[in-house]
């Protein structure tokens, strides 16, 4: 116990974050804990792959070559550098297909998510602001949507309209919107009773202006957090659909399709299914991790999500 106040090392009282910088391994560990370095690296890699797929990929993603049929990865016996991660059932290069497949996942993550976020947020703002009948109708729609088994619905739709990238992207946008509505509406219910909204109304702002200029900016953080927590689920849904054969049609190398391709050859060629699955796992994990981090930063109240 220090005798005088001056003897107390103030740094020990401070929260760990502002303590004197630690050196070496401990510093690196702290840095890794505070910043999502690893997820960011994974996601950045995927973004780069999806943009420059044709430049990075060592081979074509659709060129079959039966000499490399079910060829093991380069480091295994019988493998060579022509097929670094091995060849698939018809001898296509798995690595190149993975790189091109990143493009599909990125499209899901941007187009579908954005579509769902815009529609869901708009409906949430409208439901929360108008209340009464409109609120009731929108929220009941959300309830109905929640009770439909998505995979079955998606199967029916893709078969009705011929599987294509566009149909899958729209379907996933439809899957995404409902979560936004519930949370955004709850936020709006609080926001609309604040003084500044009342002041805007008294000043004669139109309903549209109140919603766009005064309410929407207040829920942007929530929207971002939900979006970042939701994107992983969208990618998983896309993968499941592709796996069931109702997703993105060949020859587009969606990762779910690649897993399904290797299913019948598990005993002979484990790598055909294993690598694309690992890619999905890493991507979704990084998105989720990043989402958690963003939530803690932007909106800790959403911890239950």
């Amino acid at each position, binding site marked *: 116990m220090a005798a005088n106040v001056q003897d107390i090392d103030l740094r020990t009282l401070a929260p760990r974050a502002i303590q004197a910088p630690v050196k070496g391994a401990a510093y690196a560990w702290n840095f890794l804990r505070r910043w999502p370095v690893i997820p960011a690296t994974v996601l950045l890699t995927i973004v780069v792959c999806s943009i420059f797929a044709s430049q990075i990929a060592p081979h074509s993603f659709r060129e079959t070559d039966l000499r490399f049929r079910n060829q093991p990865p380069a480091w295994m016996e019988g493998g060579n550098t022509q097929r670094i991660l091995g060849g698939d059932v018809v001898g296509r290069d798995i690595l190149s297909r993975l790189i091109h497949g990143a493009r599909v996942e990125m499209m899901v993550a941007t187009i579908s998510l954005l579509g769902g976020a815009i529609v869901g947020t708009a409906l949430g703002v409208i439901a929360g602001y108008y209340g009464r009948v409109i609120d009731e109708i929108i929220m009941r729609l959300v309830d109905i949507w929640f009770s439909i088994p998505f995979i079955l619905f998606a199967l029916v739709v893709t078969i009705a309209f011929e599987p294509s990238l566009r149909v899958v992207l729209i379907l996933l946008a439809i899957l995404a919107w409902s979560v936004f509505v519930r949370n955004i509406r709850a936020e709006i219910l609080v926001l609309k009773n604040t003084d500044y909204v009342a002041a805007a109304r008294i000043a004669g702002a139109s309903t549209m202006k109140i919603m766009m200029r005064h309410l929407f900016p207040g829920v942007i953080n929530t929207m971002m957090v939900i979006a970042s927590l939701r994107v992983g689920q969208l990618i998983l849904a896309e993968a499941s659909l592709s796996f069931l054969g109702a997703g993105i049609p060949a020859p587009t190398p969606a990762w779910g399709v690649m897993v399904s391709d290797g299913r019948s050859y598990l005993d002979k060629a484990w790598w055909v299914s294993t690598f694309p699955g690992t890619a999905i796992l890493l991507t*979704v994990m990084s998105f989720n991790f990043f989402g958690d981090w963003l939530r803690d930063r932007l909106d800790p109240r959403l911890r239950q999500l």
Partner: protein
Amino acid sequence: MGRFLARRAFFAVLTVFAATLIVFTVSRLVGDPLQFLIRPEGYGISPEALEAIGKKIGLDRPLIVQYLIWIGGVLRGDFGNTLLTEKPVIDIFLEKAPATIQLSAAAWIVATIVGVPVGVLSAVNRGGVFDYIGRGFALFGQAVPVFWLGIMGILIFSVQLDWLPSGTKGPPDASLWETIRHFILPSLVLGWSGAASYARLTRSAMLEVLDSEFVKMARAKGVAGQKVIWKHAFRNAMIPPITFSALLVAFFLSGQVVVEVVFGWPGLGRLATESVFQNDFNTLSTSVLFFAAMFAFMSFLADTLYAIVDPRIRYS
């Protein structure tokens, strides 16, 4: 509370019907179901005969009339016949239902007995080794594609190690141990994501409660650590996991489509998937009705449980 429940129940029923209406409509857009009738053997079928069959199953009526006929039949307990074999849908349905319900139940048990303790352990050791392991477990469970986890399970435990059987539920007359062996892999695969959600929910609820005044009070007056955790904190942190557990049942029932496909499980998920590809709309509509009804019922149950376990909740 009575009024709240009545209102919830009314909307739950309405939701189920609306859900079936949507899927019914979309499934009729798939195209002419009769095309599937001709395919197997009937090359010689005349257009007139085809039309007669169409009339018999009501395909010439407007969609909404077809739906009303179907839902009228359902209310009288008649779910229609399957398209290809013309057997009553309800017979096939009842034949497949046990496998699906058993697998959901097994996965639910796995998820609960693994997820909740992991969540508690991770909250109590916040920042410690167990916390990192628990959070890694949850992060993995929420990010892994179920079908891939299933395939990897089969690859490792069935193909490489040959410890567990994969595919099908096993013969009906198999011994208890043999049946359990067939359940292990699919229920673990299906249950992991649920366990992950439990772990996260329990962890955040526990952290909140452990931080509350009454827990500090209990600690301050000298209650033993374990007793504080289990008696004071855990019982109060159980509310979110309990309500979640009801929803999880519904989630497993409809979410196991993919698992059933991977493991060749003879259940409703596979039946529904096949009915989509065969355009067997009676079977499909019945499956959707079942899944939607389970979901509506379970979320109703979740709300009710919520109101029961947490008396602070006052519904208007």
